[in-house]
């Protein structure tokens, strides 16, 4: 198995500025509350370990539960899958509208978020000896990544399918037409049943095919330090915030062998600092305050350490179907 770190750096402001996020976050929380007004069901068991979920706390009044075995976090209540699918489509539309911060950062997000992911996928496929595979992208449309996948010329065919359709077992007829690669960019964070989505994607993969997963993980530095105060933790985008261990278990239980488990995040320290600047009274231990008050070299060295040891909050995993 491999772990990858990167010397690539970019500021938080170029991809997801905290102040810019707040409006989008408020929209997401409001839309989620509306979706939960109908018949909601409480999640009882962890999607990764099957253990009974424990109370953890709430994000602006919306409850989260915790998996006692892996530390993964799960939104406590969920509406019917069709309602959840509509919610994901709604916030995706908003994210791509001129009202959300993302629109003004399209180019820098392409350069710093999507292009490195495409490069990662291409390099991994080379290492796995897979040339020009058919690739399945599971996403709630629209997706900036689709165009990059298509324009790369690295794939025989790019199939973009709705992640909730896949999770609900739709388009089963395509099961006879396997793909050799699949990409889930933070899909497991937002679908209501990540295990079901992964099962559906794995069913579509040929044996030896590779699935690429990215996720924000609860075991990462900024998530672990800030906990529920982390403003980047909100539904529906983070209905599930698994730990690296939880993600690994989920993939392995879905018939996949882990090829790479990395946390090449570059923003953990900056995210905690941004929270601290916004709210200086944040309850942080003295050591963390000392670290955050240190110079840039110290921050960079610490961020590199987080990457090397799998402790950043941005995770990416490549796994091969057994």
């Amino acid at each position: 198995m491999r772990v990858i770190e990167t010397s690539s750096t970019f500021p938080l402001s170029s991809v997801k500025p905290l102040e810019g996020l707040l409006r989008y976050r408020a929209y997401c929380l409001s839309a989620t509350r509306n979706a939960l007004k109908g018949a909601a069901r409480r999640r009882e068991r962890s999607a990764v370990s099957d253990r009974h979920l424990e109370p953890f706390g709430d994000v602006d009044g919306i409850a989260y539960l915790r998996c006692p075995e892996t530390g993964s976090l799960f939104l406590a209540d969920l509406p019917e899958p069709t309602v959840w699918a509509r919610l994901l489509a709604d916030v995706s539309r908003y994210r791509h509208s001129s009202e959300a911060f993302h629109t003004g950062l399209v180019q820098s997000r392409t350069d710093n978020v999507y292009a490195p992911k495409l490069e990662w996928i291409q390099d991994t496929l080379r290492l796995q000896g897979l040339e020009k595979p058919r690739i399945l992208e599971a996403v709630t449309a629209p997706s900036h990544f689709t165009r990059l996948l298509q324009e790369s010329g690295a794939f025989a065919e790019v199939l973009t399918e709705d992640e909730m359709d896949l999770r609900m077992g739709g388009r089963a007829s395509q099961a006879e037409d396997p793909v050799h690669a699949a990409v889930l960019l933070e899909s497991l964070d937002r679908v209501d049943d990540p295990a079901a989505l992964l099962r559906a994607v794995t069913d579509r993969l040929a044996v030896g095919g590779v699935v690429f997963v990215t996720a924000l993980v609860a075991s990462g530095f900024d998530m672990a330090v800030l906990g529920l105060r982390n403003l980047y933790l909100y539904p529906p985008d983070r209905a599930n915030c698994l730990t690296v261990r939880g993600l690994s278990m989920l993939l392995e239980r879905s018939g996949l062998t882990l090829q790479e488990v990395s946390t090449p995040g570059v923003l953990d320290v900056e995210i905690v600092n941004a929270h601290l600047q916004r709210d200086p009274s944040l309850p942080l231990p003295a050591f963390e305050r000392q670290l955050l008050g240190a110079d840039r070299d110290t921050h960079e060295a610490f961020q590199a350490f987080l990457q090397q040891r799998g402790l950043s909050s941005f995770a990416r995993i490549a796994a091969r179907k057994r």
Partner: protein
Amino acid sequence: MHCLIFGFGYMGKIRYHILRQHPAVHTITIVDPEADCSTVGIEGAVLRPGEPIPWGSCDAAFICTPNNVTADLCVEALRRCGRVFCEKPPGRHWEDFCKIAETAAATPAHTLMFGFNHRLHPSIQAAHALIGNGGLGDILYIKGTYGKSGGLKYRQSWRSHPEIAGGGILLDQGIHMLDLFHLFLWPLTVVDAVLVDTFWGTGLEDNAFVLLRSEQGVPAFLHSSATLWKHAFRLEIGCRNGYLTASGLLSQTGSYGREQLVIGKRQFEDEALALGNPREEIIHFDRDDSWENEVQEFIAAVTAGRPATHGTLEDARRVMQVIRDAYAMTEHAVAGRKD
């Protein structure tokens, strides 16, 4: 399969433990007069003193002996069994290698493989996948450093006795790096070589500096050392579109450091901020299957009655030619330190 293992030192033990796990292998016989029959895990596997070597039932032989007996055993195993896995180096010198090669040529349908497992290390395989059409383009140069500290018992080891080992650190450890050079650039010829016995005073080189060139004119440089007080493995490959640095080795002791591959992509000149300091990715590896995969390939080749895909006689010939020429350049007279 019934496998014979000649020599139960460091390498013999590694091969034994891998063969024990292999589903095609049902019996292993260890041939080593110094092997302790009572050692836990090998009870019943060691050939008793005076017992004849069971060539009649042997399906494959593994030669894991000191260099001075490698060639003769390899020749005998080829003649009697025809399916031979031989640890590196393939003999003490070019003449030893030629004996093996001549016997192989006279043995129809043989399977002969040499132990050059470094090709199968994950960092090397990843580097190989990324060069050329893998995105980094053609190779511009290669530079390799491979060394160890020797250690307290260095002078007492058979590796430090000229008549047993035949060569110093270049033959013992540098041979792996030369094999990697050939993996990426073969064939290579020696441009210049400096071999010195600077510290250990064994009469064998403890440092070798070898400059080589490929047929396409690509230069390669090897520093093989027994006086690197910190164990080191480092292979730098410069390519048209970037560079790779493989370093560290997943060994049993971990003394060569965490195995990793640095991948750097060349930045274009108009990207002023990145010029001279391009973005790098570092792949860390935590699993080395090279020993297992090497044995797996040998057994598969034996079972299918085909030649091995790597570690071939030709691979061995290339590295032994380089070593022969490097020694010849220094006229076998290893220069000592001039105080």
